[in-house]
């Protein structure tokens, strides 16, 4: 039985479509007034959702590789989240072929003439940027599609062979993902400031996106439960999701602080510029709340068992993380382009809103196209009977 009935009411679908429409208007207006800001917004939001779909696949891979059963009952949610991947790649392709000249200072003649950039020219050039991106797209599409299609084929076959196959796919995916995503983080975001570098940076980007994948899975699960889906998922699953969210928000701040403290302590001109731009002056009003949203608030909310098991507090913590990681990308990408201070207005709000709406519509379509539970997975029974 396919779960063909939509869980979005017609009003909600209209709301999503009007948000996409508003986002297109806002994007058009921004392209007209300030093209650089428009490209930066496109980069932030597309990278955000592209990373969500990738981190959902990392989450699924982690389940396969550790032979974990607890999350199998709602594995179709991260699987459907990966459906954004081709769209994200399409947006990224537009961005790469039309937008990089207006964002990356090393693509301009003056920027490329700087001695530090000349020294990195073998890495920082247009051809390398494009070929690394295309390679990453190919790797992601191949492995993520394999993961999802194997899981769906298992519904009919009811055979453990697909699980064993996916263990291999998951292992290959996490290794290739680690390399390709690190390169993408360096090229797409770190090279916005071509004179600055940090060896921890790709890790840090990954940590943020992985915890956001867990937060979004939690948000979607709790939201679908309000729509009478996944009713047999209860407090034991909430507890586990809460633990993951709690642990990885600490992991995020661990890397954030490791990077911050060393650079602050050394105080070397070529490294400290990254933080003087952000942590002092008007950008500090975004920079410090970012740490509060991504670590302190989820940490305090999820510290007790009750906070993890109560769907309301869990939802709140996940929502704060969800918004927090947009802020995180915003404070990583925007400051070098807007050195005088944050520009945060209706374009940012509506373009992010439009991307959320698009993501929801794609997600809904993908979730409907398969059974709500991976009925052929041998671990499903264990997952549904999860105890504390």
């Amino acid at each position, binding site marked *: 039985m396919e779960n063909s009935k939509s869980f979005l009411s017609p009003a909600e679908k209209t709301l999503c479509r009007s948000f996409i429409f508003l986002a297109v208007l806002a994007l058009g207006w921004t392209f007209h007034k300030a093209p650089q800001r428009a490209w930066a917004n496109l980069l932030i939001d597309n990278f955000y959702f592209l990373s969500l779909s990738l981190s959902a696949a990392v989450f699924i891979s982690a389940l396969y590789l550790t032979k974990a059963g607890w999350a199998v009952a709602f594995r179709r949610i991260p699987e459907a989240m990966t459906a954004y991947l081709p769209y994200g790649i399409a947006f990224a392709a537009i961005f790469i072929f039309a937008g990089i000249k207006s964002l990356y200072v090393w693509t301009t003649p003056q920027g490329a003439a700087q001695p530090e950039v000349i020294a990195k020219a073998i890495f920082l050039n247009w051809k390398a940027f494009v070929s690394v991106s295309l390679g990453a797209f190919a790797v992601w599409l191949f492995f993520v599609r394999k993961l999802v299609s194997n899981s769906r084929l298992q519904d009919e076959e009811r055979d453990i062979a697909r699980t064993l196959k996916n263990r291999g796919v998951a292992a290959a995916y996490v290794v290739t993902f680690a390399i390709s995503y690190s390169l993408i983080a360096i090229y797409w975001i770190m090279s916005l400031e071509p004179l600055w570098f940090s060896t921890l940076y790709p890790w840090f980007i990954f940590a943020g996106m992985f915890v956001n994948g867990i937060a979004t899975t939690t948000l979607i699960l709790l939201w679908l439960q309000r729509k009478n889906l996944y009713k047999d998922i209860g407090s034991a699953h909430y507890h586990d999701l809460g633990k993951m969210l709690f642990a990885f928000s600490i992991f995020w701040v661990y890397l954030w602080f490791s990077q911050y*403290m060393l650079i602050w302590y050394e105080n070397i001109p070529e490294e400290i510029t990254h933080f003087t731009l952000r942590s002092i002056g008007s950008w500090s009003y975004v920079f410090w709340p970012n740490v509060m949203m991504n670590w302190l608030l989820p940490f305090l909310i999820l510290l007790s068992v009750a906070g993890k098991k109560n769907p309301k507090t869990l939802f709140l913590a996940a929502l704060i993380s969800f918004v927090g990681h947009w802020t995180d990308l915003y404070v990583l990408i925007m400051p070098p382009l807007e050195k005088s201070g944050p520009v945060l207005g209706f374009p940012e709000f509506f373009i992010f809103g439009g991307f959320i709406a698009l993501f929801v519509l794609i997600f809904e379509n993908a979730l409907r196209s398969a059974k709500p539970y991976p009925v052929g997975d041998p671990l499903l029974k264990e997952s549904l009977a*999860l*105890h504390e």
Partner: protein
Amino acid sequence: MPNKNLVGIFSSDEKLVHAAQKAKEAGLPAFDAYTPFPIHGIDEILELKPSFLPRVCFFGGLTGLLSAFTLQYWVHAVYWPMNIGGKSFTAYPAMVPICFELTVLFAGVSTFFGLLFSRGMHPFKTSPFWGLQTENDKFALVFDLDSEEKANKISSLLNQEGALEIREITA
């Protein structure tokens, strides 16, 4: 007053959980289980009270955090102020690693001793339930004994549930 216990030893966690469930339904609830690994859901069947260890852990961690902060603040800002790289005497980011480490250390050590205390254990004491192979491959379900009649009922129930062995242990 010594406490008499009846212990049923099982070969698997499933059998133990089933026996505990049956005993609870028969009105003869078991009060503890000794197993090689944690069994999920057994605390509900045994109606164990939530442990106070999370609170011990929390306040241990808080003590560690505060003592690390106080120590560093006192040393760097009060007792022996030193100019390090032109930074302020109270350069908080530099204090974070020590605060973090001491939080973890105090939380871990206090939880360890809290666990020993809550079980009434110390290095010179041997648990009466030691030596049942429950650290190896056996699963023990412990009942309180207050009358012979109850002992017979529990024994027959344990036999029905496939206990490998039934032992009477005085704690």
